């Protein structure tokens, strides 16, 4: 019901994607109900209290505790729902941004003016060795934890992968490690979400999720090519 | 900053404080956050880079010390000038105000000498981030000193003419604020801990 009003989110293919979608939908439903109530009360009051001949307005300045409770009780309910939302949101945030599960694959992602560059450590899994290579797209195996060590060369960018519900600013001078685990193979869009100059709108890239063995052979083949140079 | 001296004969609620003093205090309260934010940013940067202690030791602590003494003394003179202005003693109030202005100018002279000394040693705001903060904060403070001197000079002219004596207090407030800022700037830059 909410999607029709608030909008259709792209298909979620990340493990922590469910948590984020759960929090968004939870907020969506609570907030939508409160909104309907508030606007309903507002328009009902407008309609019922319009000027009628011979009917004088009542003198109610809401200074007594009883009168104020009409406002304070709903507000306490709002506070209760808010705290519940914040508790749910924090547990999701803690899982996504604070805890870092063990990495199966590590990528270095470097944001620069108007392109994302990915560095794969190669078969030996260590950076700075001969077999490192820089693929055009972020190629990752399915059902494996991928670490993205994110930084930037010049200005602030933001790695934005809608289908993974993944967004992390890349700040020059800071190295931030994000992680995700894809649950479905296929090609998904990557974009830059933070204004980074005239080319901000063309920093497109793609996330390719492959089966585990297809990924392994792709890495072997790329490392061999890198070693050849 | 001319405070209106409208002697409104109309009955009003009791005035909380003279316009000038109240307005200046509100302005200073917002200035606290300007210099506070700036010094906080400097302290954060300094905590991030332990190498800055060595740079901080290159600042001329002796000049910093003299400048602090100068500002404290000129604060004393301004408070005395305000004290005598309240008692309508034009001569004494003017004398102390003049001394306060002279000491302020002397502060700028020493500051200029210090800057010139550092430029001679090849230190400029671009050498590194410490010196950028150093020149920016002390420069902004020196600018406030210049504004303070202009205010004090205008007030001195008013004292000589014997009118608007409550402005001495307002000028004094601003000058003391600039002294308080220097009290915090001095240890941060000149006492290499």
């Amino acid at each position, binding site marked *: 019901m909410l999607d029709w009003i608030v909008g259709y989110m792209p298909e979620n293919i990340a493990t922590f994607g469910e948590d984020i979608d759960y929090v968004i939908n939870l907020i969506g439903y609570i907030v939508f109900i409160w909104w309907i109530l508030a606007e309903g009360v507002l328009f009902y009051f407008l309609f019922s209290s319009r000027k009628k001949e011979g009917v004088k307005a009542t003198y109610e300045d809401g200074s007594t505790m009883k009168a104020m409770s009409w406002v304070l009780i709903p507000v306490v309910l709002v506070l209760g729902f808010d705290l519940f939302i914040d508790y749910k949101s924090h547990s999701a945030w803690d899982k996504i941004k604070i805890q870092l599960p063990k990495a199966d694959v590590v990528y270095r992602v470097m944001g620069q003016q108007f392109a994302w560059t990915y560095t794969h450590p190669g078969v030996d899994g260590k950076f700075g060795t001969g077999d490192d290579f820089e693929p055009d797209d972020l190629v990752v195996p399915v059902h494996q934890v991928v670490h993205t060590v994110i930084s930037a060369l010049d200005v602030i960018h933001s790695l934005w992968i809608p289908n993974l519900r993944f967004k992390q600013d890349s700040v020059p001078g*800071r190295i931030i490690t994000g992680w995700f685990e894809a649950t479905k193979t296929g090609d998904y869009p990557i974009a830059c979400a933070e204004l980074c100059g005239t080319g901000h709108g063309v920093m497109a890239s793609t996330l390719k999720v492959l089966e585990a063995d297809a990924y392994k052979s792709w890495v072997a083949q790329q490392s061999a090519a890198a070693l050849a140079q | 900053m001319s405070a209106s*001296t409208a*002697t409104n004969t109309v009955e009003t609620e009791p005035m*909380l*404080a*003279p*316009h*000038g*003093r*109240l307005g200046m*205090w*509100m302005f*200073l*309260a*917002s200035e*606290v*956050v300007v210099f*506070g*934010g700036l010094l*906080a940013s400097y302290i*954060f*940067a300094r*905590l*991030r880079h332990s190498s800055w202690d060595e740079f901080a030791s290159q600042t001329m*602590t002796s000049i910093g*010390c003299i400048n*602090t*003494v100068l500002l*404290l*003394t000129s*604060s*004393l003179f*301004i*408070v*005395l000038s305000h*004290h005598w*202005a*309240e008692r309508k003693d034009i001569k004494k109030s003017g004398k102390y105000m003049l001394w306060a202005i002279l000491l302020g100018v002397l502060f700028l002279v020493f500051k200029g000498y210090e800057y010139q000394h550092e430029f001679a040693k090849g230190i400029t705001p671009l050498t590194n981030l410490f010196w950028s903060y150093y020149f920016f904060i002390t420069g902004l403070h020196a600018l406030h000193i210049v504004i303070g001197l202009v205010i004090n000079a205008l007030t001195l002219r008013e004292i000589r003419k014997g009118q608007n*004596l*409550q402005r001495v207090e307002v000028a*004094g*407030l601003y000058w*003391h*604020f600039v*002294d*308080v800022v220097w*009290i*915090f700037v*001095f*240890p941060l830059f000149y*006492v*290499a*801990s």
Partner: protein
Amino acid sequence: MSSDQVDMGHLTPKTYTIIWAILLGLLFLSLFAGMVKSPVLATVMIFGVAIIKAVMVMFYYMHLKVEIVYVKVAVLAGFLALFFFVVGVYPDVVGQFSK
């Protein structure tokens, strides 16, 4: 019209000069504090002295002590806002995360 308010908290030129002398004393104290060996003690002493000097100038020279409550609240609000800023920014800008 406005200088009829009460005498500024019984402060006379003599007391102002005494306060001035104390301030100078504190200045030299902070200089010696610079020589103290342990860096933590030195920083605490230096900034402690600076805060005392600042409070003295504000209370006695700026007559904050005898000022109306609204002004005291305004100055306190200024320092409170600063405190929120420092507490909010410190862990991020200086924390291990930002290395």
